[in-house]
């Protein structure tokens, strides 16, 4: 029951985020969708992922998107439609993708199996898995984040340097 409430909250937030005309409103409801997803993670027993989701998405990514929206606010009047020119073909693609996914889920053996007991995932287990078995991917993610942040700053600053 709780799962249904969080699922409806998440889907409603996502739909509103994708359909609102005002971009700032759209980011606000997007945080609702991310928070609902975090609640779903908590309910599935993944506490660490749920809190990481709140920290990263509700905290950081939403703020980042708000900054980008405020920096790229268009001076001209709003365009006549919020939809792209090829929206009809896109809607068809979306419907086909969702239809295939829903059909596959309905047909698969996964929808008929029994519910196993709640698995354990303590912070200690996650920490030792990150430090021992997944140490190399962790290092690579660190390098990737550093490179991406330096690259993002370089891309965003390029124009200003050229004009000087």
């Amino acid at each position, binding site marked *: 029951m709780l*799962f249904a409430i969080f699922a409806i909250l998440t889907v409603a937030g996502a739909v509103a985020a994708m359909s609102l005309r005002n971009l700032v409103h759209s980011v606000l409801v997007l945080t609702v969708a991310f928070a609902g997803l975090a609640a779903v993670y908590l309910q599935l027993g993944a506490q660490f992922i749920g809190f990481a989701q709140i920290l990263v998405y509700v905290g950081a990514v939403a703020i980042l998107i708000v900054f980008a929206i405020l920096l790229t606010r268009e001076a001209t009047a709003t365009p006549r439609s919020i939809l792209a020119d*090829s929206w009809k073909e896109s809607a068809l693609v979306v419907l086909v993708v969702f239809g295939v996914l829903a059909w596959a*889920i309905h047909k698969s053996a996964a929808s008929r199996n029994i519910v196993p007991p709640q698995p354990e*995932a303590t912070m200690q287990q996650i920490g030792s898995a990150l430090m021992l078995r997944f140490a190399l991917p962790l290092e690579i993610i660190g390098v990737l984040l550093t490179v991406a942040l330096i690259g993002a700053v370089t891309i*965003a600053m390029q124009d200003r340097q050229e004009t000087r």
Partner: protein
Amino acid sequence: MTSVASCLLLSALLFAIGLAGALMRRNAILVLIGIELMLNAANLNFIAFWRYGPNPEALTGMMFVIFSIGVAAAEAAVGLALIISLYRHAKTINIDEVNSMRG
């Protein structure tokens, strides 16, 4: 009723909504938000299969989600920097108007 099928259905719905936003909206920032939603849908699948699949004590699904969140954060930073750069260059973030490379 919480089962793997309902989680997968929620994830498929989120993916479809994200795909709709990425394909149908005019604004480049909304396209990026749609991509974020699709990544979140994939993360939900990993968590669902970690919870209901065999060998949850190996924590592989959870680890994949942690790394996926890291990559998504990097992607968001670079994508928004590209949008800001595009706005400085073309003075618009309407993806229908950014067509100077059309053949």
